[in-house]
């Protein structure tokens, strides 16, 4: 293993580092990458890893490396084992299925490919990996793996050859926009924080308080390649003039927290965090802060309050965190995925990044594809791909061949898009125009058995639970909207209730203090816009067209 001094060689850094052999050199080198992210782990992929190691060892295959890697994407088919050298992916590998494991070992030893290998298409067609480039390839708990995969080259390049202005210019050129949901131009945000004056420091904060139902993009990135996020943060720190960073992770992601903490320690040991990064005077320290189970702490001002030890409630803006954030100092807040985009942008240039995607939405977007679709999992696609391509090509269509009804994007503040919009390109503007938004990347596919009023009720239930209670419209308005939706799904609603719901939704959207309240009515608006007939069926005919609601009918 090379020393820290190697890594700190001025101007060269990690790039000069000789790649460390993964396994002793042999005639053939093959690796079996066993997914150890939460999805596959929940199906005992840790036991698969152990069992496979035992068998490979027993078979004396010294040229086979059985490795722990992050998310391989196709969560629906887990536990997954990939043999990249053969371009093969093995699905549903059970730890106690001796025959399957044996056939896998046969494949690894150069024998006939085992029967279980699955076609990598069409799930992987249309995908472009930028954020997830190293997910599923590197061991998330070994910085050496990350370095071998070209990790920290961008940071080294940044601090040794670029000025902060040049870094920001590159980010501006890339057209990268905030991946947390709002889509604010990242370069502009960085510029603002860089220009803010502060005599006692600035902060860089990574928002990993992912909380949308069905969304697991940030978790997967942190579990699969935490170093890439840290590298992005360090580059941001250099660009805006901050020496301290915080990653705010929700407590429900223990594995992400563990891997993040280990990644920070290893990055510090390797000289990519801490003092004298890559042999320069630049220093950047990162600490992890863990949430306490409040969705609203994903809102930036609530998140900052929580980091400072206060109640996680939002405050009115301005001042924006860029001017007055943590402890009143200029603070850059970006999402996990945004930071993970930064190293590739710096390495390959903003122009390259801007060549991916469409119009005002550049680059790729990671989505957590969930719901009634065959291939649920983690995907990364170029902006501008159509919903149809995602749902039917990548997603493989609907489970059981059922009829498509809607796809929900953007979490509790997003919307439900109907079949008519399947050919709409996925970008910030199109989604907003259709009454949804990009959100952080949750994408839930719904089939004909889903009642859209019930869906609106589900999300409203979520919002009323998660409202912090500070501002009145969100605190009481979400509860009242839930009550009206509940009444309608029980077949007791009236046309007047529908009008009240609509005017209340308008009021909550317009007057709430933060994004949670402002966005809470969106599922109501989008379902009313595209599925109004379902509301009317509950009200006028006392029936649920999808057959999902239990109507007890009757008048009051």
């Amino acid at each position, binding site marked *: 293993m090379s020393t820290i001094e190697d890594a700190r060689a001025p101007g060269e850094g990690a790039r000069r580092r000789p790649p460390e052999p993964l396994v002793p050199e042999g005639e053939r080198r093959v690796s079996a990458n066993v997914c150890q992210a939460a999805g596959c782990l929940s199906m005992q992929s840790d036991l698969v890893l152990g069992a496979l190691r035992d068998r490979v060892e027993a078979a004396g295959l010294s040229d086979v490396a059985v490795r722990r890697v992050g998310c391989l994407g196709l969560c629906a088919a887990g536990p997954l084992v990939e043999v990249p050298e053969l371009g093969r992916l093995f699905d549903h590998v059970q730890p106690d299925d001796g025959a399957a494991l044996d056939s896998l070992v046969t494949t690894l030893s150069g024998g006939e490919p085992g029967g279980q290998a699955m076609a990598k298409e069409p799930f992987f067609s249309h995908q472009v990996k930028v954020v997830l480039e190293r997910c599923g390839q590197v061991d998330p708990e070994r910085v050496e793996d990350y370095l071998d995969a070209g990790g920290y080259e961008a940071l080294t390049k940044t601090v040794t050859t670029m000025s902060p202005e040049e870094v920001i210019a590159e980010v501006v050129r890339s057209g990268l926009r905030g991946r947390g949901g709002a889509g604010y131009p990242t370069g502009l945000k960085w510029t603002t924080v860089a220009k803010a004056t502060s005599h006692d420091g600035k902060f860089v904060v990574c928002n990993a308080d992912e909380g949308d139902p069905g969304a697991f993009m940030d978790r997967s990135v942190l579990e699969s390649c935490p170093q890439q996020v840290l590298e992005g943060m360090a580059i941001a720190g250099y660009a805006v003039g901050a020496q301290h960073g915080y990653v705010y992770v929700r407590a429900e992601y223990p594995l992400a927290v563990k891997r993040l903490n280990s990644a920070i320690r290893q990055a510090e040991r390797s000289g990519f965090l801490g003092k004298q990064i890559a042999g320069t005077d630049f220093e950047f320290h990162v600490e992890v802060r863990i949430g306490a189970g*409040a969705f*609203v702490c994903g809102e930036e001002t609530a998140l900052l309050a929580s980091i400072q030890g206060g*109640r996680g409630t939002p*405050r*009115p803006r301005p001042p924006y965190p860029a001017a007055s954030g943590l402890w009143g100092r200029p603070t850059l807040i970006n999402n996990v995925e945004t930071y993970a985009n930064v190293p590739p942008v710096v390495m390959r240039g903003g122009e390259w990044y801007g060549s991916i995607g469409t119009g005002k939405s550049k680059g790729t977007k990671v989505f957590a594809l969930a719901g009634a679709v065959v291939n649920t999992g983690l995907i990364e696609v170029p902006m501008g791909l159509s919903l149809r391509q995602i749902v039917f090509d990548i997603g493989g269509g609907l489970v059981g061949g059922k009829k498509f009804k809607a796809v929900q994007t953007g979490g509790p503040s997003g919307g439900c898009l109907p079949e008519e919009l399947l050919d709409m390109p996925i970008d910030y503007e199109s989604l907003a125009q259709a009454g949804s938004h990009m959100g952080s990347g949750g994408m839930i596919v719904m089939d004909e058995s889903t009642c859209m009023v019930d869906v609106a009720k589900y999300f409203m239930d979520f919002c*009323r*639970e*998660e*409202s*912090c*209670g*500070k*501002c*009145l*419209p969100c*605190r*009481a*308005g*979400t*509860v*009242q909207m839930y*009550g009206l939706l509940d009444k309608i799904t029980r077949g007791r609603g009236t046309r*007047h209730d529908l009008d*009240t719901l609509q*005017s*209340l939704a308008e*009021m909550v959207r*317009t*007057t*709430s*203090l933060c994004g949670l309240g402002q966005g809470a009515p969106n599922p109501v608006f989008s379902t009313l816009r595209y599925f109004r007939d379902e509301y009317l069926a509950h009200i006028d005919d006392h029936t649920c067209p999808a057959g999902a609601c239990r109507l007890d009918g009757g008048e009051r």
Partner: protein
Amino acid sequence: MSDEVRTLVIDGRDVAGASGQSILSVAEESGVFIPALCHLAGLSEVGSCRLCMVEVEGTARLVASCVTAVEEGMKVTTTSERLLAYRRRAIELLFMERNHVCSVCVADNHCELQELAKTLGVTHFELPPLHPACDVDATHERFVLDHNRCILCARCVRVCDEIEGAHTWDIRGRGTGARLISDLGKPWGESTTCTSCGKCVQVCPTGALYEKGRSVAEGKRHRPYVPFLVATNALGTGRQL
């Protein structure tokens, strides 16, 4: 914060304020009424009741006038059909959230919520009452906290923290489950930080905090007390934005 003059138009009237001063504060000084419940001159702003939202020309969104600084040339509209509808709805949400029964309330006839409902022309409610089970804390020897009437404006929290310096009050829980608490949830009477100064009782807009021994409609506040707050609290001049 510099004290440069900013001239602006509120409801067609030319008015002037200091840089950094809130729209609401300038409106108050100019005799323009903007409804508000969490705002109280003399205390810092939280911007949570959302009643004071106004329209600003050139801005698509409504802004909370208590936390928005005046700007040169700003054109502010404080009353419109839309604003009135939202404000009425806000009053309705408050009335329906806890158990407000004006006719048997200690603050009847001395209540800012009741008065605002009248001023804004709220004559009935469309939404159903939530009827939460709420406690009454009568453990303090001189005062009572009745959660049935609390609107979570946090005036008491701020006056206790910013003026009295005790920070006995805070808020626990979230959503409609949020509750005012003394000393991390101890009964008020067992609070070791409360100085029994009674400031919280004086600033409470409803009948949530009142003096023991007062019956229905007897909970009159000592309103002359309020300007005193403004004078003593440097934070609360409306110019700290």
